[in-house]
């Protein structure tokens, strides 16, 4: 479903600040794969997301979605195939517009936008049905401005908006990191449910190792712009945080204390 071939990205090339954000990344996701991505700050996780979504062009390498080369497709065209939830709960919704209007915009993602009314009666019913699955009571507040919702509610709405059109790829960019523990847990649970329901091919970046172990069928660890660990299936099921940290130490052979503090 998603094919990254020999992707490299370098920032500030030729200056003292040169940073190899991604180095020869090769990654293939099968239909229905749910991959969690971990790694310390600056490992290249966000750049990887941006390369897939199209907001960052790779220096070299190709991106294919469903055997279609989309490397040169601008972000807004590629987002027909890609749903994305950002870390910032404010980023995924339009605050001065209502819940139903936000959903209507997401609904039009994989269609051509025309001069048809965005929020019709029929669509309202559909939106209510979808909102029901969040169990947050948002279905009774269709006309509320999204800016009035709490961070957790907004993030749940963002998650719904990113997924209910069943995109080919779902990108989750530390989407629970800005929430309090109980809300983060709720969003994590909803994520599992929604990915299951629509069989979405998902890539999730997280700093929470437990979350990375609990969710998904495959886990990759990144460091210095490279994928240093890629486990799936039964091997992933048997992973623990201790094992992961041990793996990291073994591969990189460095002290983990700093990373333990960041990742734990």
């Amino acid at each position, binding site marked *: 479903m998603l094919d990254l071939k020999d992707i490299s990205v370098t920032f500030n090339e030729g200056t003292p600040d040169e940073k190899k954000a991604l180095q020869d990344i090769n990654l293939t996701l099968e239909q229905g794969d749910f991959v969690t991505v971990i790694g310390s700050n600056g490992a290249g996780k966000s750049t990887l997301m941006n390369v897939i979504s199209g907001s960052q062009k790779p220096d070299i390498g190709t991106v294919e979605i469903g055997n279609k080369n989309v490397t040169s497709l601008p972000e807004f065209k590629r987002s027909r195939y890609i749903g994305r939830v950002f870390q910032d709960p404010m980023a995924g*919704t339009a605050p001065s517009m209502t819940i139903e*209007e936000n959903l209507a*915009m997401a609904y*039009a*993602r994989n269609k051509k936008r*025309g001069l048809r009314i965005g929020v019709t009666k029929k669509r309202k019913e559909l939106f209510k049905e979808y909102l029901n699955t969040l169990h947050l009571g948002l279905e009774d507040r269709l006309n509320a401005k999204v800016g009035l919702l709490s961070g957790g509610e907004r993030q749940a709405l963002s998650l719904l908006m990113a997924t209910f059109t069943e995109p080919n790829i779902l990108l989750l960019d530390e989407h629970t990191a800005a929430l309090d523990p109980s809300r983060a847990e709720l969003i994590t649970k909803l994520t599992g449910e929604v990915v299951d329901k629509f069989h979405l091919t998902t890539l999730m970046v997280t700093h929470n190792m437990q979350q990375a172990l609990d969710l998904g069928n495959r886990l990759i660890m990144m460091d210095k712009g490279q994928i240093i660990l890629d486990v799936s299936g039964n091997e992933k099921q048997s992973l623990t945080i201790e094992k992961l940290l041990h793996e990291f130490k073994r591969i990189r052979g460095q002290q983990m204390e700093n990373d333990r503090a960041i990742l734990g």
Partner: protein
Amino acid sequence: MFFSMFSAVEIGIIYAIMALGVYLSFRVLDFPDLTVDGSFVTGGAVAAVCIVNGVSPVTATILATIAGFVAGNITGILNTKGKINPLLSGILMMTALYSINLRIMGGSPNIPLLTETTVFKMFGDFWSNTGIDQQLNSWAKAWGAEAVPSTWIVLFIMIIVTIIVKLITDFFLKTEVGLALRATGDNEKMIRSLSANTDNLKIVGLGFSNGLVALSGALIAQNDGFVDLKSGIGMIVIGLASVIIGEAIFGKKTIVRTTLAVILGAIIYRIVLTLALKVEFLDSGDMKVISAILVVGALVTPKFIATIKDQRRRQRKRLELQDKAKGA
């Protein structure tokens, strides 16, 4: 008094269309577009030149609107494709339009239309035969008006045109494209991740905005009986004043309500201006400074009121607490 108020409402409702244009760029797209000062005159100039050359006034007005649309498109292209800062794109376009408008007007800074057939005169003959003017004027006199307008046709046409423009704007902002346009001004990153081409939306939105501004310019020129190259100066401030005053007084809860608020804001702005000019030592040259003061007032007052309200609320709570403490 009645007569000057009547004129204020009449002019205000024509400017209301311009104010709706400014609302689209300034509020909906969050794009402070200074093209307005130029495109307003472009509308008047295109309409005047067409009418003088024998084009029907309705066609001339439509062509003027299209000219404004194109001007807005160019500002949008400068901003999105040229990556020029929004404010600067508008200033560049406004400056360029000054020369372009002079070209359109054939090099003369003023074109008179007094002897030409305008949209208002077109319907004027039919209107005066109906006798509605006499009827309305006799009522006005009965209410104590000492001077009455020569005709009510401009007001009636403008009410209809403005309502149509409002309804079209309301509808447009509720369509799928309209929603995406509003989101572009609200959260651009988000709507791009929902596969909307924000560059094109901005270009279309600014076109729509300046199309309305030019339509207003064309109608003002036909109402005034001339178009003047310099008549656009300060137009953006008048538009902003209307938007801000309207929103402050009538609220902005929904789109339908906000567009109505903007129209009423434009009329109130004219009324306040008319009243201000009645003050002894102010003359028409002071209009711009009055406009500026009005905008400042409309911006500062709501926040000032909110602060005072909040202070009172906190004071009340403190007093309640004190009373409770005494009681206990």
